[in-house]
């Protein structure tokens, strides 16, 4: 423990901030101790021959009204300025600690009164409180120290209260309380040691504030009185003749700013040294293109011709631990106009990232790469931003997973629909609003005209999701990408939304890419299924031939769906094991570790997506040998999950 703490401090001190802070601290301490001893007498030497002089060789910052050297006076004033600030901080922290911890000792009712008083006091700026107390304690150094100290007390009291409250709820304090430990002992032994560290950090930063506040009072003539002098007073004297000799004001001002900041830096360093959290290292190196192209890159799909969307060899990579993680690795797919395609896979298989990459919604630091990405014949990889915006804005609709967070909470729902048409169809505000109401009606939102004026939090989840589908219909979409559109909804509402998607698709003749982890959802709505695993499409087949799926992963997914014949006595089937992490992909087939059929070849060679029947493609080495298998032997794993 001690060694780690020391290591933390060493690390904190070695940062640029830490070095600067300790350097400043050393200089300030030296000046506080030595300056009055070394230069104290010279700062008092009256030179009547050199009154109110400017900068010269003898007096770098000039002389004051008695001919005394301002440079020396600034150096000597360090002790009084810093000393008063520290004294004020001690008063402020001490009072704040007493008041803030009082509720623990005083018991409930009085404690609440104290808390209330602190809450009132904390609302007033410290400077106002300082003036208030300065009036009471009278003009002078003593009054100003008390004033600054008491003015900072409420914020320290509030800090103490907050921290005490968080500590007081912890188990060891409750245990001590039950054990009959007295309140005072509880406070001193159990609570205070646990809040000491943040208090020290804030006190150090507070000392910087106290220095500036105290100097402010001196500057106003309410603090240190002649013949004593601190930086605030020197600044005030210097400002009086700022036109003639500005350097007289510069010296104390610079001293104040530098030392005020030094306290802040020291506070930051202490905070870093105390915080057990290690500093998170930056990702090393410049971004480089995602990993090498797989030798097994999928071949071209069926001829483009009438395809609406065409994707070839899509990769998505993110910077990760100094290198790159690639959660989408060479996805190829094509969607024809009016077709309904499902994308099936566990969470983390890369489905949503694929959708976002196709929709061109991934931003840096994500890196998207593909051999081909066309929508309605336009190459999205090379299109200029304007073309892309116009094309996708008009013909590409997106439906996201969680409708409650996918609408802007500060704008009426209708407005959020209407702005699509205002932007992309050039409709006026009124016409766009009318279309929004019409679209809401189209997706069966009851009393659409009234609802359009409401805010998202006034809608139910299902209704919001329908509104989002309506938002996708504001233009003339050719494709709607729905990313888990029903996952965040109640089961009963799920069916409604799916039925709506199916109806809209049929009526408007648009294509649908439905992303889901739910086999039944995809089977109900889609013509064709793409099964994704670890960033790859591992199988593709028509929905009506799902029973002939060959990839062990697809079969496992299908087996995991309960139906009327599923025995209720046995645990539900699950796909055994966990999905692989995109930053730790194995050399061979990514599914090998979870696959009951895996052989040595599966662990070394990555299988390619290859034709396996009419409209069917599969990426698996074992399908050939297991063609005749009526059922995937998932039964063996049924009880195997922990």
């Amino acid at each position: 423990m001690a060694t780690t703490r020391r290591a933390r401090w060493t690390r904190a001190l070695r940062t640029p901030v830490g070095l600067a802070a300790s350097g400043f601290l050393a200089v300030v301490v030296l000046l506080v101790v030595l300056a009055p001893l070394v230069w104290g007498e010279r700062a008092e030497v009256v030179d009547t021959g050199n009154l109110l002089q400017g900068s010269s060789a003898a007096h770098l910052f000039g002389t004051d009204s008695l001919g005394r050297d301002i440079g020396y006076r600034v150096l000597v004033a360090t002790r009084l300025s810093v000393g008063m600030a520290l004294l004020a901080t001690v008063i402020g922290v001490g009072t704040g600690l007493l008041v803030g911890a009082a509720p623990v000792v005083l018991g409930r009712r009085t404690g609440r009164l104290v808390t209330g008083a602190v809450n009132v006091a904390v609302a007033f700026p410290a400077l106002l409180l300082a003036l208030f107390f300065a009036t009471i304690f009278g003009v002078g150094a003593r009054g100003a120290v008390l004033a600054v100290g008491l003015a900072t007390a409420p914020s320290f009291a509030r800090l103490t209260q907050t921290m005490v409250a968080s500590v007081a709820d912890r188990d060891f304090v409750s245990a001590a309380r039950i054990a009959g430990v007295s309140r005072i002992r509880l406070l001193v032994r159990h609570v205070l040691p646990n809040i000491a560290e943040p208090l020290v950090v804030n006190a150090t930063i507070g000392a910087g504030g106290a220095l500036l506040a105290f100097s402010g009072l001196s500057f106003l003539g309410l603090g240190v009185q002649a013949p004593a002098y601190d930086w605030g007073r020197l600044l005030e004297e210097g400002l009086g003749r700022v036109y003639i000799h500005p350097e007289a004001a510069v010296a104390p001002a610079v001293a104040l700013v530098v030392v005020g900041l030094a306290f802040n830096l020291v506070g930051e360093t202490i905070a870093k040294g105390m915080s057990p959290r290690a500093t998170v290292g930056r990702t090393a190196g410049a971004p480089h293109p995602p990993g090498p192209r797989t030798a097994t890159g999928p071949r071209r799909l069926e001829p483009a011709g009438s395809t609406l969307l065409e994707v070839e060899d899509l990769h998505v990579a993110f910077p990760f631990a100094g290198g790159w993680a690639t959660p989408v690795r060479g996805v190829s797919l094509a969607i024809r106009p009016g077709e309904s395609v499902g994308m099936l896979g566990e969470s983390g298989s890369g489905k949503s990232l694929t959708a976002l990459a196709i929709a061109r919604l991934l931003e840096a630091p994500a890196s998207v790469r593909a051999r081909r990405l066309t929508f309605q014949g336009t190459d999205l990889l090379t299109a200029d931003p304007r073309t892309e915006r116009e094309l996708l804005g008009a013909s590409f609709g997106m439906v996201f997973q969680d409708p409650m967070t996918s609408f802007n909470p500060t704008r009426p729902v209708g407005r959020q629909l209407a702005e699509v048409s205002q932007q992309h169809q050039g409709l006026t505000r009124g016409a766009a609003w009318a279309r929004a109401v019409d679209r809401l009606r189209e997706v069966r939102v009851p009393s659409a005209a009234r609802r359009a004026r409401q805010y998202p939090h006034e809608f139910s989840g299902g209704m919001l999701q329908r509104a989002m589908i309506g938002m996708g219909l504001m233009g003339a979409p050719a494709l709607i990408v729905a990313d888990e559109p029903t996952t965040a909804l109640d089961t009963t509402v799920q069916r409604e939304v799916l039925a709506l998607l199916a109806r809209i698709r049929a009526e408007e003749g648009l294509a649908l890419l439905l992303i889901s982890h739910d086999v039944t959802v995809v089977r109900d709505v889609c013509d064709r299924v793409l099964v994704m695993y670890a960033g790859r499409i591992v199988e593709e087949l028509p929905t009506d031939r799902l029973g002939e799926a060959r990839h062990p992963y697809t079969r496992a997914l299908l087996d995991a769906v309960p139906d009327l014949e599923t025995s209720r006595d046995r645990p539900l089937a699950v796909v055994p094991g966990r999905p692989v992490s995109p930053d730790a992909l194995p050399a061979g087939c990514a599914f090998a570790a979870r696959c009951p059929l895996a052989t040595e070849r599966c662990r070394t060679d990555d299988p390619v997506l290859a034709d396996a029947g009419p409209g069917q493609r599969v990426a698996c080495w074992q399908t050939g040998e297991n063609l005749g298998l009526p059922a995937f032997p998932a039964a063996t794993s049924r009880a195997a999950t922990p």
Partner: protein
Amino acid sequence: MTTREAAVRSRRVTVSRSVVAESPWVRFAVRRSGRLLVSLWALLTAAFLMVHLVPGDPVRAALGAAAPNDLVEARRHTLGLDDPLWLQYAHYLRGLATGDLGTSMTSGLPVSQVIGDRLPATLELAGLAFVVAVLLAVPLGLGMAVLTRGGRRPRVELGFTTASVVVGAVPEFLVAVGLVLVLSVRLGWFPVAGSDGFASLVLPVAALATAPIAVLARIVRVEVLSVLDADFVRTARAKRLPARRIYLRHVLPNALTASITLGGLLLGALVAGTVLVENVFSWPGLGSTIVSSILSKDYPLVQAVVLVYGVAVLLVNLLVDVLLALLDPRSTIREA
């Protein structure tokens, strides 16, 4: 406890008939004005006690040690300082209610008249500085957030954060001195002091606004960054709205909650900050008045100025809460 519960229940029965009473807005208004009244009472009482907490005799202190005893006695009598404390408190409250703030000990003028003469100049300064701070800090914070989102431009981010921490820590009177040194003395662009037209406003306003700009811009940036990650921003991008519209209509309104809270605190501090800045620039406002009256021990005047500043701070806090409630109607419901 039980009687209170019963009282609450009976009250609920009587008010539940009215639809208005069920509205979260009414609950909010009742709760918030209750808090305002408590704070106001604390302020009034503190200002009253301030004069009585001064060690020794405030009249003697104001008139000086050399003043004859009968003059001090007479002045004590006219100020009502002979009366028992509770009676003085009652007189004080009655005076406040009728707008009578007492008489200045040094000038002999009614305190309310002095305040009336001086307050507009201070309000002008504080109000203008606040408007300038908000108008500069919000676009600055938004712009920095957009530039540095998702870990982009780490050097810009480091530079901005460092600069805003440093600038935000420098108190307004030092900024004021710095501005005077550079812009008035060196370049001669603006007058060094006084209140004479627009040019004389520039430096005091800049001095007051500088630190709040830094602090507010930093908070706006952090807030905007967190909103940029929100789902609804992705939705707005999926709608292919132009970047400007996304940032101004979808991001900014959702990023302002914490910024408004902080803005209120800054405005409160800004009101108090006028004290120092007015003294640097010899600005004829309440700030120079309070300092001169503290120095001359003109207690009725000090008391009244403290009251005015305090009430200003309370009003700012009220304004912030109302604004927050208006921006996010859910917050008032949640709080209830």
